[in-house]
C-alpha cells in the first residue's frame, strides 16, 4: 500500500447523499475472483448506458473533473460489505474520499485498501462543493501528520480524526496483516486459555 503524508489535488464532486455499495459497484460485477478490473466498473450504471456508451452528464465522464480526491454527500457506502466498492474507488485512482458521513464497513474497507476516508462537517462539505462548482480546478490539501484538510479556494481548514494506529499505517504504507503475523506467539498463548470452541 502507498503511504500518504501530504496530498494536494483537484477533486471529483459527487454531491449525492446515501450512495450505497450497489451504486458504487453493482452486484453483477462481484463475480470476479480478482481485485484488478473493479475500477472500470466504478459507478457503472451511472457512468454507462445500456449500450455501454458513456453517459456524458455523469461526473466521471466529464473531462473537466479529475483528481485523487472524491468528494461525496453524506452517508456514503452504506449497503453491503463488499470490498469491491473500496477496490473500485482505489483502482480508479482515488486516494482520499471526503464526506460528512461514511457507512462503517465501507470506511474500514477503504482504510484497509489504502483509501483514506475523511469525515468533515456538513458546512465544510458544502463549502468544498461550492468551491468546485465555481472552479473545477479548486484543490484540497490533506496533511495527515497534522490531521488537517484545507479547502484552498476559501482557505477554510478543518481537522479530522483518524485512529492513531491507522494513521501510522497510512504514514508508513503498512497493512494489518504484516502487524498480526508478527504476533503469532501471543495468539497461540491466548488460545491456550481460550479453548472453549
Amino acid at each position, binding site marked *: 500500500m502507498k503511504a500518504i503524508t501530504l496530498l494536494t489535488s483537484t477533486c471529483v464532486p459527487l454531491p449525492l447523499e446515501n450512495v450505497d455499495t450497489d451504486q458504487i459497484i453493482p452486484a453483477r460485477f462481484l463475480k470476479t475472483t480478482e481485485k484488478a478490473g473493479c475500477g472500470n466498473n466504478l459507478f457503472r450504471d451511472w457512468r454507462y448506458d445500456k449500450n455501454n456508451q458513456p453517459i456524458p452528464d455523469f461526473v466521471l465522464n466529464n473531462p473537466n473533473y479529475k483528481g485523487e480526491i472524491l468528494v461525496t454527500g453524506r452517508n456514503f457506502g452504506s449497503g453491503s*460489505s463488499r470490498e469491491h466498492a473500496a477496490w473500485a474507488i482505489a483502482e480508479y485512482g482515488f486516494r482520499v474520499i471526503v464526506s460528512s458521513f461514511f457507512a462503517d464497513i465501507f470506511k474500514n474497507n477503504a482504510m484497509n485498501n489504502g483509501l483514506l476516508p475523511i469525515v468533515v462537517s456538513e458546512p465544510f462539505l458544502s463549502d468544498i462543493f461550492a468551491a468546485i462548482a465555481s472552479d473545477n480546478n479548486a484543490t484540497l490539501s490533506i496533511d495527515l501528520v497534522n490531521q488537517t484538510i484545507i479547502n484552498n479556494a476559501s482557505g477554510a481548514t478543518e481537522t479530522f480524526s483518524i485512529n492513531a494506529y491507522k494513521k501510522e499505517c497510512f504514514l508508513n504504507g503498512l497493512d494489518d496483516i504484516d502487524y498480526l503475523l508478527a504476533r503469532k506467539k501471543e495468539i497461540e498463548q491466548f488460545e491456550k486459555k481460550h479453548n472453549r*470452541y
Partner: protein
Amino acid sequence: MNTIFDKIWDAHTVAIVPDGPTQLYIDRMYCHEVTSPQAFDGLRARRLSVFRPEKIICMPDHNIPTLNQDKPIRDEIARRQVETLYKNAEDFGLTCYPIGHKKNGIIHVVGPENGLSLPGMTIVCGDSHTSTHGAVGAIAFGIGTSEVEMVLATQCIFQAKPKTMRITIDGTLNEGVTAKDMALYLISKLTTGGATGYFVEYAGEAVRNLSMEGRLTLCNLSIEMGARGGIIAPDETTFNYLKDKEFAPKGAQWDAAVNYWKTLKSDDDAVFDKELHFDAADIESMITYGTNPGMAMPVNSTIPDVGEIGQKALAYMDFKIGEKLLGKKIDYVFLGSCTNGRIEDFRLFANYVKGKKKAENVIAWLVPGSWAVEKQLREEGLDKILIKAGFELRQPGCSACLAMNEDKVPAGKYVVSTSNRNFEGRQGPGARTILAGALVAAAAAVNGFITDPRTNRQKS
C-alpha cells in the same frame, strides 16, 4: 456491570494495540464464493497457510442457480467463482459444503441450524448479514475481504470496539405481526444510519417471545439500520434450538456449555451508550415503499412526505407521496433469503396460501434457505400445500435476494420480497422491490396485489 457484548468481546481480546484497535480472536469464520477468492490469493502471495483450518467453513451460496443444481452452472463467471472456492478449500484443507450437499444453503441459515454458530462465539464472514448469527447470543459481524485474509492467516482481526445500544421492545406483538415487521418498524424509526457505530442488543418481552427463527430474522436486519451487529442473550429458546444440533456440544460438554451460556447476559446495572424503548403493540404488518429499508410503513398506510431526498426513490418506484399501496398490482413474489428463508417462514406462507390459489399475474419464487429447510418442509407436507396452491419450490441459495444467479426481476416490475434490501437494481436492473414479511408476501401472492394479511381478504 457489563453488557453481554462486553463479556464476549473481553473474552476474545488478545491485545489492544496502543492507541489502536482491539486484536480480537475469532472462533468461527464462514467463507462464500464472492468475497473470499482475493483473500486466498493474498495468502498465496504471502506464502502462508491457513492458521486454524478447523475454524473455517466454506460454502457457495450467492451465485448458485435455484433450478437444476445437479447440472453445471451455465453462467461461466459464476461457475468459475464457485469452482475457485472449491479449489481454495481443497488447497488450504478447509471444510466445504458444495452445491447440492445436504448442508449447503445460505451461510446465515446453515450456520445456526447445524450448531456451527454457538452462544459466546465471535463469528465473522465476508458478508454484512453475518449479523444474523447474533441471534444465538454471539458477536457476529460482516467483514471485508482484507479482514477475511487476516482471519485465514492469524484467526484474529483488528476491530475498534463499537458503542453499545440496547433496543427494548416491551409487550406482545399483535396477531399476524412477525419478526420481519418488527425489524422493518425499527429501521423505519431509526433510519438506515440510525445505529451506525453501535452493536445492538435486542431485549424485552417481545424479543424474548420470538422463536429462534424470528430472532435470526431480527438480528439479520440489524445491519440495515447501520449497526455492526445485533445480539440476543441466549435463553431456554436458544438452548432448545441448539440441543442435538450436529456441531453443538454433547453430553457433559453440553451441560458445561449451557452453564457458561447462562452467564451471557447483560448485568442489571450494565450501561449502554444508548437505550431505546418501543412498544410491540405499536408494530403493524410493514412494507417498504422506497429504495432503502428505512422507507417502510404499515401495509395499510399511505406514503409519507419523504421530502426532496426521497423523491428519487419514489420516482424509481413510480410511487407518489400520499399514495396508498394496498391494492397495488404486483408482478413477482420472492420468499427466501437469509432474512426469511427458514422453516417458519415457509410455514407461515404455506399456512396462508392453503386452500387458496396463486394469482395468475404473479410469478413466485419460493426458495428455501438451505437443503435442511427444504427437507423439513417436505417432511411437514408444506410442499404439497404450496404446489396445490399453484406454487413451485426452487432449490436453496441466495437467489433473487441479490439476483447474482438467473432469478432476476425485470426492469419496472414490482416484487414483494421477503429479503432485506430494496436498493435500486438489487433484484435485477430496474427491478422495484417492496420488502415485507412472509405473511404479507403470501397475501400478495394469492391476490396479485398488496394486501393486508390480517384482514384476510381472499381472492374472489
